[in-house]
């Protein structure tokens, strides 16, 4: 019974393995140039979005419709511990090392060939965090010799790529006020830019930029009208203009001071116009009758100058949002030809059920059309892209209820959106957007018997219901020039994972039932599927190593649907949680030329 012997035998090999692996990775510094070319490079994935514009389109053709049935798992990596819940992360790959984040603000570096862990980082989360929508994380950023991610207590963490050691930690917002960071931050020319999620009523959504090397704050930009933006010069905050010019133009009373509008999903970058394209959340409070006006810039898309945070243009999808149709969904830059000229466009599929094509140089509306089967809150869009409201589709004012349960309003789509956070993909080959969408609605009623913090309250009751008996999720291939739905694939459970397209005429996405699936990008035919053992609500990537094409995706059921999905519970209640990173490849012997 001696204490030293087992220690020496057991612990040392573990330590040596970790060190050896870390040293063997020959990491090259990642430059902004690498990121700008990420959508063209086949041997790396160094941006969230597989390209700074977020198209999620790989030029690789090694894996294609003819051979995808030979795609097979080569390794799986467990996130370990008791901590499972939703895994919504997109991995990054550089120099044979994969960087992936997981639930509860964890991150790993993994050997991309073998799946062996190189290091793990686990944020020390305080007790009081109150994330609205599960303990998820959506991915990391990589730059120079560091990797970065945001945590549930609203901090940014910079880690050494090779060792996982902390380089700096920056508090971005107050977690005690309900703030969290769940989105992948973006790096634009050395600036690390993030939004913040959540926040109680009384909070103003803000975009923050930091020096990626040092963590020093560079600028802030509130997204609600009337608030001052700042740039920091030598540590001093210098005023840089009021968002929207002045307060009170589109808000009554002092309500702009609270505002909401959290840009919780982060943004993408358009190099042509040097713009950060980012969406903003819904206004506060929820009851739209209290804040007549457009409530700028909530439920909007913004083009922001990444150098100083100035807003270049805005497009508001849902003015005076009364349905919780956050406008945070990704804005993807793409070019197309029309009448012989090149259109520099940007597209976004909103939670409100409409697909918008904008001119990304000035934010002007080019066209819009519904991509959801049924929309009741608006009858359509006018020539400027503004919704033509249907007054009967707006939830009533709880203050008008006469002590009885108010009449229920059925609104299509539900507040979780015709499409939520999970990113769509754009194929440069087919010219189609592949939208992971859902067909569900919500009942909303005024709730006269409700209480909050020991006091009577006037709340709204709401519940989500599937629109159809046999499916909720719909993967759609949509032509942005015509609005035509070229094909659709229906799924029983709601789709909550991101989509990827490839030049091999393939489209990949995951399902809560556990499958990673591949479809023919042209026809929608389902060509391949693999059950990962838990729901796939993350976004796949693909890259090439030693001439072989790989595909990776995180698996682990969770996110907002189990927490807020109402009657959707009937469909999803038996899904098990997980926490695995699955990697597949097409062995070279099956690759056809």
């Amino acid at each position, binding site marked *: *019974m001696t*204490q030293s012997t*087992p*220690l020496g035998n*057991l*612990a040392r090999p*573990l*330590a040596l*393995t*970790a060190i050896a692996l870390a040293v063997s990775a020959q990491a090259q510094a990642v430059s902004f140039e690498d990121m700008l070319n990420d959508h063209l490079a086949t041997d790396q994935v160094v941006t969230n979005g597989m390209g700074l514009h977020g198209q999620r389109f790989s030029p690789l053709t090694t894996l294609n419709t003819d051979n995808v049935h030979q795609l097979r798992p080569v390794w799986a990596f467990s996130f*370990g*511990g*008791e901590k499972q819940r939703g895994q919504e992360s997109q991995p990054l790959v550089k120099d044979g090392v994969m960087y992936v984040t997981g639930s509860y603000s*964890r991150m790993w570096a993994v050997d991309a060939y073998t799946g062996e*862990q190189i*290091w*793990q*980082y*686990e944020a*020390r989360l305080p007790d*009081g*965090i*109150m994330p609205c929508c*599960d*303990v998820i994380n959506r991915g990391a950023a990589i730059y120079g010799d560091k990797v970065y991610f945001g945590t549930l207590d609203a901090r940014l963490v910079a880690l050494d790529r090779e060792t996982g050691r902390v380089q700096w930690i920056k508090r971005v917002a107050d977690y005690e006020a309900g703030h969290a960071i769940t989105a992948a931050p973006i790096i634009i020319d050395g600036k690390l830019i993030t939004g913040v999620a959540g926040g*109680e*009523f*009384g909070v103003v959504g803000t975009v923050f930029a930091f020096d990626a090397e040092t963590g020093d704050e560079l600028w802030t930009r509130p997204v609600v009208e009337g608030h001052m933006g700042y740039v920091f010069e030598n540590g001093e905050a210098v005023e840089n203009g009021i968002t929207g010019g002045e307060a009170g133009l589109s808000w*009554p*009373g*002092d*309500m702009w*001071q*609270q505002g909401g509008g959290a840009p919780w999903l982060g943004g993408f970058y358009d190099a042509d116009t040097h713009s950060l394209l980012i969406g903003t959340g819904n206004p*506060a*409070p929820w*009851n739209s*009758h*209290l804040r*007549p006006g457009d409530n700028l810039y909530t439920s909007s898309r913004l083009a922001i100058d990444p150098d100083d945070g100035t807003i270049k243009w805005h497009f508001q999808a849902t003015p005076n949002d009364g349905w919780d149709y956050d406008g945070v969904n990704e804005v993807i830059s793409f070019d197309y030809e029309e009448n012989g000229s090149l259109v520099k466009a940007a597209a976004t599929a909103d939670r409100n059920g409409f697909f918008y094509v904008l001119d990304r140089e000035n934010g002007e509306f080019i066209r819009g059309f519904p991509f959801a089967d049924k929309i009741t809150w608006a009858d359509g869009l006018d020539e400027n892209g503004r919704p033509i409201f249907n007054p009967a589709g707006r939830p009533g*004012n*709880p*203050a*008008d*209820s006469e*002590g009885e349960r108010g009449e229920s309003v059925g609104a299509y789509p539900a507040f979780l959106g015709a499409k939520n956070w999970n990113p769509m993909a754009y194929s440069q080959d087919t010219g189609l957007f592949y939208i992971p969408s859902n067909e569900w609605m919500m009942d909303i009623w005024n709730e*006269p*018997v*409700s*209480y*909050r*913090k*020991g*006091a*009577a*309250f*006037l*709340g709204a009751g709401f*519940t989500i219901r599937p629109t159809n008996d046999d499916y909720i999720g719909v993967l759609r291939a949509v032509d942005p020039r015509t609005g035509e739905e070229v094909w659709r694939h229906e799924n029983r459970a709601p789709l909550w994972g991101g989509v990827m397209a490839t030049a091999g005429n393939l489209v990949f996405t995951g399902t809560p039932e556990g499958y990673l699936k591949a479809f023919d990008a042209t026809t929608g035919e389902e060509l391949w599927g693999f059950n990962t053992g838990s729901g796939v609500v993350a976004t796949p990537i693909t890259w090439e190593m030693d001439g072989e094409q790989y595909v990776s995706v995180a698996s682990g059921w969770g996110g907002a649907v189990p*927490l807020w999905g109402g009657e959707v519970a009937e469909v999803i209640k038996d899904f098990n949680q997980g926490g695995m990173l699955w990697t597949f490849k097409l062995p070279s012997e099956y690759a056809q030329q």
Partner: protein
Amino acid sequence: MWKRTLILLLLMLFQAPAWGEGLAPQVLRVAVAEVVESNPSAELFRRPALRNLDEVMASGYINIGLYEDFPPYSYIDDTGGPRGIDVEIGRAIADGLGLEFRPFWIKPGSSLGRDLGNNVSRGHYLRPTQVADVMLRVPYDKNFSYLRDSTGEYINKSVVMFGPYQREEWGIAYDAGQLDGEATLGSFRHQRIGAEYDTLPATYLTAVMGGQLRDNVRHYRNVGDAFAAMARGEVAGVMAIRGELEHYLAHHPAHDFRLAEPLLPGISRQQWDIGMAVRHNHRQLGYAVEAIVDRAVRDGSLDDIFQAHALEYRMPDFYAEVLGPAE
């Protein structure tokens, strides 16, 4: 044999560098608890530490669920200690059972139903092992207790709400230095009025009288901030629950702040009762707690607690019927 296993576990946890720092202590605690104490560990199974009356009594302490940062009912005072009317009621409950009083601080969620789920019946999904044994300041309203969903199920069936101990109501405090005569709702067509964000007054004031007051409503993080604003002359009135109004009136003796008795037309609920909640299968614990609080209502010691906090005690309807109208 088990000892060797334990030591091995301990040593691995302390030495293995690749393991997460945050993970190790938790695993260690579980391992130690499993091997040394052989107790089933709630931590391991990630289940709430749901304790019935016998388990609470055997443990020597009781977790009393209190809203955090909520003067005059429950908050941390300048000395860092728990303070407030509900804190005193919690102490009385613990004393009455011969137990140590342990405050269980609750961050209010978007609704009472969520608070009950996160802190009494189920535990928050991030902290499933942490729940209060009994929660205070839970409105006592049969309509709420027996609320049904669209399928006919009782929505709040996993908790029992019992033991009404206070009547609460909405009120308005005003600055007599700014207003001529007693404040009415109409006063705030021309003067500003403060309210806490995301409360019934915030909704009510922006909607009542066809929205005529809307532009004069100023929103604050809490009622304390609203009173500070009234002291600066930023608003001439504050609408809040009576308990908060009386508390902050007492804290601004230098100003001529007064309580109004305004008519609040169309307000959905002007008065309601405050009670407690336990998990539905801990009724026995509820009876024991109820007996103590009931005694405090009847013998006047609850009245003393309210007076000591500069509040007027208002008895719930339930007692008004049993004991007759208060003098």
